[in-house]
């Protein structure tokens, strides 16, 4: 068996009962079967399917960017491009908020960086208690396919570091595919956006970091 293979729902991944079924797989009598469409990956004895298309499904600990859609008496409803809207509770804000002044902290239509704090039957809960989280005041927001986020970040952040260095912008990539860019000049921000779109478009190319280095040289030479 190769390390990674494209798999469709209902297809057998491996025969033997030696392996453990991970996410997106199921153990049946004669082997482990895929339940989702994507790449089957074996790590040790665990087999899982990495989905490559479809709606973003949040996981605990993901940093996401969302838009405030509704204000309740005890928090905010935030659209994070998942199948459900997420909830940011007043309790998860690291400072005192007047119960009448929720809209002063974040109003409807504001963008916010938050961390997925928990997922349960009732919905997705967000938190802005860590550093770097909270309302976004400046810069630009762009959107890419959430399944391309790992390519934009690169191995141990190599790709995003390259883009940051070459554009002088500060970039935050939300796992849901929304990206926040701030720089000194609007031109820098737009340049960073162009670079990210280029990465997202070429996400199938191997050795993309080297190719992007070349791309930056060409673009700057213009």
């Amino acid at each position, binding site marked *: 068996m190769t390390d990674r293979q*494209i798999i*469709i*729902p*209902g*297809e057998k991944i491996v025969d033997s009962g030696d392996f453990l079924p991970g996410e*997106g797989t*199921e153990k049946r009598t004669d082997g482990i079967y895929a*339940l*989702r*469409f*994507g*790449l089957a990956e074996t790590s040790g004895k665990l087999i899982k399917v990495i*989905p*490559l*298309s*479809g*709606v973003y*499904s949040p996981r605990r600990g993901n940093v996401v960017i969302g838009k405030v859609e509704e204000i309740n008496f005890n928090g905010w409803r935030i659209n994070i491009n998942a*199948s*459900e*809207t997420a909830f940011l509770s007043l309790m998860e804000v690291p400072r005192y908020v007047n119960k009448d002044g929720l809209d002063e902290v974040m109003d409807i239509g504001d963008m916010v960086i938050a961390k997925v704090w928990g997922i349960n*039957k009732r919905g997705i809960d967000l938190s802005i208690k860590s550093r770097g989280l909270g309302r976004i005041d400046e810069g630009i927001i762009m959107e890419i396919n959430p399944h391309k986020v790992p390519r934009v970040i690169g191995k141990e952040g190599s790709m995003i570091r390259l883009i940051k260095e070459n554009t002088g912008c500060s970039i935050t990539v939300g796992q849901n595919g929304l990206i926040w860019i701030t720089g000194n000049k609007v031109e820098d921000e737009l340049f960073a956006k162009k670079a990210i779109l280029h990465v997202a478009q*070429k*996400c*199938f*190319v191997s050795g993309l970091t080297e190719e992007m280095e070349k791309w930056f040289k060409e673009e700057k030479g213009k």
Partner: protein
Amino acid sequence: MTKEFKRQDGRKPDEIREISAKVGIIPNADGSAMFQSGKTIAIAAVYGPKEHHPRNQRNPARGTLRCTYNMMSFSVTDRIRPGPNRRSTEISKIIEWALEPVVMLDKYPGLVVDVHIHMTQADAGTRCAGINAAAMALAHAGIPMKDLVSSIAAGKLDKTIVLDLDKYEDSEFEEGEGSTDIPITFTGDGKLTHIQVDGHITTEQLKQAIKMAREASKKIYEVQKKALKDSLGGGK
């Protein structure tokens, strides 16, 4: 009986029309696919899982599958009146039932998965093409499924069991006992999720028809599988 049975388009009784499939044809949808069988072309777009509106129809125990079958007004030679009608509402429900056994909706309580199926060309066997396209589109949308489903129509022309009736055989063939249309849907491992019979057939003949359709469904399954895998291998 009729050993040398000739079909109008020269196919053998167990020969299906030429089929092709493509995945990822609608960029805005979460999952999409096209399935073509002869002159019949179906496109399917999947949106969701997403919040279920109207809220009173949501099921808090498990997700809902909502299919919409539609024939484009230009899909047949006489223009058909656009919009839902008795027939399309019924077929929408049938497609839901054909897909529901394989789609694992228990993971999305209170949510809905919308499947829109449009026929851009219709030449009989539209519900089968629709189901085939929808199965691929659902997989492409990343919805967990037990298996893929493949649908094919068996049928009877006079006394001969045939596969994949076309428009002429389905609605104009009048010789002898006339024609019977039996759309059947199979999972990848040959289990049945849907069967309809429109016409007269004996139990023995029905058994034979199911057996023939099961063989043909394997061919369709392979085409669906290849289309799904090709959609990822695009740039690799």
